[in-house]
């Protein structure tokens, strides 16, 4: 039988260490909505999403109340829109109309974000893919809840450098189109390599074509819980450190598993995966950077940061996989700058640079995330940063991503602020030397030799 110490431990995690379930994300296939008429397509999309997600938010709230565990976000991911709209869309404006439909559906369902305004172009772009990508700046400027992602590379296909070049321009245009809101559009736009089909986290969530009609994926969190646990083993050896992280990750993930099973049962929708990611928020005490500093760094960004993060990421996975039979999505430690007080602090005092963040992305999920760069950064340089990040993912057979925010009209020393979970970010310096001639080359970077496994 459960004893009082165990009950106190669990409730301490919830009340004082920010333990929560970060998101219940319902994946909804839109493959059966295809139509050659744009109005009919939008009508089918709206009806399918609102029908399937009708009880998502109320079910999430009921689970929160019964188990006493906060479920911070209820969200929806849909089939990458470029796959279902080729017959109906002839111009970027047509895709903007679909984005508005998705926004209205998300509003109707009561969720805070909907992901899947996406294109998968790791080897090449169809006309629909390219039109969708070109519509992104306007689509994100005129919607509130829609998130967009573009997969431009994979270990099996290499990197589509034409798409990388285009995305550099699109990110700049998105920033310009949303300049009034501190370039918020870019916070809702991710460029991926090896994007997973079942990621529940935004802004990169979409419902892959290998998924069932509807599915429930759950993202757990808990950096504050890990930080607190590590406070009790200060100065201990690596074995003790690793054991402590594993045990904590196990406990955190079990809560996610419980919520996922309950949500799946109550909604009558199959359970997909638990995403084990340590996802920080701007709240004090909910920071991945704080964990790294607790492990022994004066500041995140100091020598040793990459090794500490590698250890953390691995132990989180080892603890988490015991807790759930179906682990997927991104699963690792997130290192967004704007969404993590410790990362913001380190960037502001110059301890954390773009280059160090890039190194850190080699050993964790997901990538260069929520990083504000100077507003005058050239599109080619943005493409260069994306290409570097995609190369890390391609060669290391892992997911990597770039969510960069060119802060229009701002320079190093200024900051952008989005509020809520998206937080605020100091503008970080970018290497000022050009990569224009490299980026202007046409075609693809071939897949690495170790991808030929057949």
């Amino acid at each position, binding site marked *: *039988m*459960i004893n009082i110490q165990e*009950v*106190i431990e669990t*409730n301490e995690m919830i009340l004082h260490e920010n333990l929560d379930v970060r998101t219940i994300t319902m994946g909804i296939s839109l493959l059966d909505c295809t139509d050659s008429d744009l109005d009919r397509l939008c009508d089918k999309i709206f009806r399918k999403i609102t029908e399937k997600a009708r009880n998502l938010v109320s079910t999430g709230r009921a689970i929160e109340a019964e188990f*006493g*565990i906060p479920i911070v976000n209820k969200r929806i991911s849909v089939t990458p829109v470029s796959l279902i709209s080729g017959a109906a869309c002839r111009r970027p404006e047509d895709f903007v109309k679909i984005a508005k439909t998705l926004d209205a559906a998300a509003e109707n369902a009561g969720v805070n974000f909907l992901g899947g305004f996406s294109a998968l172009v790791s080897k090449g772009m169809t006309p629909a893919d390219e039109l969708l990508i070109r519509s992104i700046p306007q689509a994100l400027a005129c919607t509130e809840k829609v998130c967009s992602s573009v997969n431009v590379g994979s270990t099996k296909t290499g990197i589509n450098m034409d798409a990388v070049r285009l995305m550099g321009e699109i990110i700049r245009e998105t920033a310009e189109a949303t300049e009034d809101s501190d370039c918020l559009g870019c916070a809702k736009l991710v460029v991926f390599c090896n994007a997973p089909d079942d990621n529940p986290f935004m802004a990169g969530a979409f419902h892959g074509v290998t998924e069932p009609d509807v599915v429930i994926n759950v993202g757990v969190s808990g950096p504050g819980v890990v930080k607190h646990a590590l406070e009790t083993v200060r100065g201990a050896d690596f074995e003790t450190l690793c054991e402590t992280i594993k045990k904590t990750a196990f406990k955190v993930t079990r*809560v996610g*598993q419980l919520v996922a099973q309950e949500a799946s049962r109550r909604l009558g929708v199959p359970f997909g995966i638990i995403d084990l990611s340590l996802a920080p928020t701007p709240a004090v005490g909910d920071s991945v950077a704080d964990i790294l500093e607790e492990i022994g760094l004066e500041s995140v960004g100091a020598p040793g940061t990459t090794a500490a993060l590698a250890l953390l990421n691995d132990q989180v996975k080892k603890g988490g996989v015991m807790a759930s039979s179906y682990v997927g999505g991104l699963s690792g430690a997130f290192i967004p700058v704007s969404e993590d007080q410790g990362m913001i602090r380190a960037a502001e005092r110059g301890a954390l640079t773009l280059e160090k963040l890039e190194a850190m992305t080699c050993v964790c999920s997901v990538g260069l995330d929520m990083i504000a760069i100077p507003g005058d950064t050239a599109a080619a340089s943005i493409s260069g940063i994306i290409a570097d990040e995609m190369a890390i993912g391609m060669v290391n057979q892992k997911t990597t991503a770039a969510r960069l925010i060119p802060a229009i009209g701002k320079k190093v020393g200024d900051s952008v602020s989005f509020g809520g979970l998206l937080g605020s970010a100091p503008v970080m310096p970018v290497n000022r030397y050009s990569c224009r001639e490299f980026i202007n080359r046409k075609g693809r970077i071939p897949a690495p030799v170790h991808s030929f496994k057949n």
Partner: protein
Amino acid sequence: MKKTIITVTGKDTVGIIAKVCTYLAENNVNIEDVSQTILQEFFHMMMITDTAGSGKTTAEMADDLKKIGSEIGVQITCQREDIFDMMHRI
């Protein structure tokens, strides 16, 4: 039938258990086990209860008990046992 765990945390004052037990009796909730401890100067009490005979849902009781807790200056939670089982039992 799954159990419901009720916890009370706060400064120890007269009548905490009486208040909570009165509420549970009024709602036909059977208390199966009670334990308490003082941790870092705070009073912690845990009750394992069977709510099968109650007309209220766990969420409704959690809401009521939260209000009672704020009246007497303690924090009261009411959660289904599963969350603790999942976290602490393999």
